[in-house]
């Protein structure tokens, strides 16, 4: 099961003792604030977690995969996420735990 806003709020209630109503509102306002800042052109850096960056893309050629017809992909603004060093390191521990003890040279 995926982690959802409801579980994030439940966790705030359990760990910090914030009442359920406020926990739910805080989770809601957090994601809404990140999104509305991105909408206003702000890139966001959450230290230890990662950065949300904005990028303007020019129009480029594309194709409708269903019909095979050439259709240009219109110019657009997109958000990209780059995990921070701390999160990357934590996630890599998971990869290590799934690696059998074979003789692989690790390169970073």
């Amino acid at each position, binding site marked *: 099961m*995926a*982690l*959802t*806003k409801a579980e*994030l709020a439940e*966790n*705030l209630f359990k760990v*910090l003792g*914030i009442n359920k109503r*406020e926990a739910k*509102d*805080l*989770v809601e*306002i*957090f*994601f809404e*604030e990140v*999104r509305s*800042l*991105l*909408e*206003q*052109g*702000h*890139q*966001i*850096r*959450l*230290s*230890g*977690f*990662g*950065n*949300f960056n*904005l*990028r*303007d893309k020019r129009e480029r050629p594309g194709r409708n995969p269903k019909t095979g017809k050439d259709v240009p992909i219109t*110019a*657009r*603004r*997109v*958000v*990209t*996420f780059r*995990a*921070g*060093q701390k*999160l*990357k390191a*934590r*996630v*890599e*521990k*998971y*990869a290590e735990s799934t*690696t059998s003890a074979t003789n*692989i*040279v*690790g*390169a970073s």
Partner: protein
Amino acid sequence: MVKSELIARIVSKFQQLPEKDIELGINQILEHMSETLEKNGRIEIRGFGSFSLHYRPSRNAHNPRTGEKVVTIHKYAPHFKPGKQTRERINQSRAKNIPIIQDSREEEQAP
């Protein structure tokens, strides 16, 4: 915009909770999300987007300095897929000519 600035904005909008609780709360949200990802769990925030790990298989590579051939270890990389509402709202801000604000602070550097 960094985390402390984001927290300050939320503090000013969310008067029901003391500043300390908001700060602890946001750090706890991010910690809970990190814990989920480090166990290869998935995060789904309706309308905002989803986070999951993407598998990167091992590949042949070489050390650019020595030219020595190495095989990289397979790994998992965190991935974010923006939700529909996030995608649309961000794209609309381009249509409204809202500029992307460049932060003068340095980006988090790779070691």
